[in-house]
C-alpha cells in the first residue's frame, strides 16, 4: 500500500479509493507533548489544502491539512482518550482520519518516503 507525504508533514496511505491520513514522526517531534486532537466528522467534504484537523500541544494549536480532496469516512476514536498516541505512534496507531478520495490524480503532486526524508534533512 503506497504512502505519500506532503511538505506540511502529513502522510497518506491509499488503499483503493480510501486514504488514511496522519502526521509524520518529524512533525510530532516538533510539536512536543500533544494534549488534544480536534478531528473532522464523518461525512465532511474536504478540498485539498483544507484544515479539517487541529493538533494541540500545551502552547500551540497546529492545523493539519488535507493532502487530497474527498469525503471523511471516519476519525480515530482512540485519540479522544489518548492523544499521546500521535506522539508515540504517529505513523501507524496515531492515524487521524480516513476519507474516500474524489480525485486520485492529486496524489501525483505528493512525495514518496525517500523524497520526504531528503526534504526534512534540509530543514
Amino acid at each position, binding site marked *: 500500500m503506497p504512502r505519500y507525504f506532503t511538505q506540511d508533514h502529513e502522510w497518506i496511505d491509499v488503499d483503493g479509493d480510501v486514504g488514511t491520513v496522519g502526521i509524520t514522526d518529524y512533525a510530532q517531534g516538533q510539536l512536543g*507533548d500533544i*494534549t*488534544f486532537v480536534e478531528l473532522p466528522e464523518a461525512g465532511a467534504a474536504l478540498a485539498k489544502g483544507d484544515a479539517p484537523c487541529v493538533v*494541540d*500541544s*500545551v502552547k500551540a494549536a497546529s492545523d493539519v491539512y488535507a493532502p487530497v480532496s474527498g469525503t471523511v469516512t471516519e476519525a480515530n476514536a482512540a485519540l479522544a482518550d489518548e*492523544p*499521546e498516541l500521535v506522539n508515540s505512534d504517529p505513523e501507524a496507531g496515531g492515524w487521524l482520519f480516513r476519507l474516500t478520495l474524489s480525485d486520485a490524480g492529486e496524489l501525483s503532486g505528493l512525495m514518496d518516503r525517500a523524497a520526504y526524508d531528503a526534504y526534512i534533512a534540509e530543514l
Partner: protein
Amino acid sequence: MNAPNQSGWRPEMTSAMGSAEVYDAPTASGDRALMLEEPLIFELGRPGTCGVDIDEADMGASDALAPFLRKAAPALPGLSEPETVRHYTRLSRQNYAIDLGPFPLGSCTMKHNPRLNEKVARLPGFADVHPLAPQQAVRGALETIAQLADWLMALTGMAAVAMSPKAGAHGELCGVLCIKAALQARGDDRRIMLVPESAHGTNPATAAFAGFAIENIPATPEGRVDLAALTARLGPDIAGVMITNPNTCGLFERDMKAIADAVQAAGGYVYCDGANFNAIVGKVRPGDLGIDAMHINLHKTFSTPHGGGGPGSGPVVLSAALAPFAPLPFVTRDADGAARLIEEEHALEDHPSTFGRMAAFNGQMGMFTRALTYILSHGADGLRQVAEDAVLNANYVLASLKDVLDAPFAASGPCMHEALFSDAGLAEGFSTLDIAKGLIDEGFHPMTVYFPLVVHGAMLVEPTETESKAGLDRFIGSLRSLAERARAGDESLKSAPHYAPRRRLDETLAARKPVLGWRD
C-alpha cells in the same frame, strides 16, 4: 554566686553554629519553617461552619417562593474567620508580586502600585455608590470619570475617549468596532486589516470578531514596519492597520506619521495598540502621529494593580473621525462644564452614531479613581519623567548585558522602554526557558519569553521606571550569571527552578486530563 541556672537554659552557641551541613529531612507537618503548604478549602472546611454572624429568619407560611426552594443548602465549605485569614494569608505567601521584586515582563509595565490609589478607591463616596443612582446623587463620580477622560485626551492629543471597555483586549475590540462602524456608515465594505508580523495574538482574534481578515506586513532588518511594503499593499480593500508603537520589539516606529498618512489617504483607519504607552507618555502625543484610535491599559501605564490577573481597564482615545461611533455610555461635558454619561435614552439626540453598548453600567470606576489619583500625583512633569526613566532603565539593562546576551537590534540604535534579547549563543540544547526558570531561583519573576515571534527564543525585558538602580544592578547580575551558565552548558538549569514552592509543573497532564474543580 547565686544559683547559676534555675530555668535550665544554658546559652552556648558553639554547638549550634558548628554544623554547616545541608539538612533535608522531612517534617511531620510537611511545612518547613516559613515555607508553608496549604490544603484546599474543600479539605479544610465544612458546610455547617460559618465565619459570619447572620440572624436567623423564618420563611413564613404559604410563601410564593415555596415551589422554587432548593432542597438542601449548597455543598460549599465554610471556615471561621481565623481559619479563613490563615488560609488566604498562607496562600498569599506562595505568590511572587511587585511588592516583593521586579517583574521585568515586556509590554506588561509592572510598575509599583501606589497605596494612595487603594485608599482613595475605598472612600465610601466612590466604593459604596450604585451605578443606577439618580444623577443628582453621583455628581462626583461623573466628574471623576470626566477628569480622567480629560487627562487621557490631553496626554494623547486625541479628540474623544471611550471610557467603558473593561480591559485592554476589550478596548482593542472597541477601537476595531469603531472602525467597522465608520466604514459601514459610509457604505464601504473593506474586509482586510494589516498587522505587523510581530503583533500580539489579540490583534487577529479581535479583527476576526469584527469580520476582518488579517494580512501581515513584513518588518525591516531594523525591526520596524516596512513602509514600502505597507504602502504597496494599500488599496480600497484595506480597512486599516493595527500597529503597536513602540512596537513589540521595544522600538519606536520612526515612520509612524508616514504610515498613518498613507493609510488614511487610501481610505483606511489607524488603530494603535497602546500597551507600550509607558515609553512615551508625556514626551510624545500619539495623536500628533496621526492615529485614529488607541487603547490605554490603565493597569499598565497608569499603575492600577494587576490583582493576579485582573481586573483591568481599557479606555480608548479616538480621533474626530471615529468619535461619533464610540460605545455607550459615553462621557461628555455639557456647555456649563458639568459631566454627564450619555446612555441609550439620550443616544438619539446626543450620540446617534454609537455602535452600541459593550457592557452593563458605567465602566471600571474602581480603576478610574486609582488611575486619576496616580495621574494627579505625577502631574504632567512627573509623567514625562516616568517615560524618561522607563526608557533609561531599559537601555541600562541593554547596555549592561549585550556582551553576554544577543541583542538583535542593539546595533541599530537605542531601545525604548523594553530591551529584546535572543537565544543566539546559548550552548546546544539550552533555551530561553532554562534562563527564565533559572531567574525564579534567583528570586525574580522571569521576563517575557518567546514573544515577539519574530526573534528566536525572544527575551523581552521591561524594568519600568519604578526600579531603583540598585535593584536593576541586582537583576542584571542575576541575568548575567544565568546567561553565562547557559552559554557554558550548565545542566542544572534544565531542572530549574529548585527553590520555588513548586518545581516545574506538568502542563501536559493538566491539558490531557483536565481536572478543573474539586470532586468529592
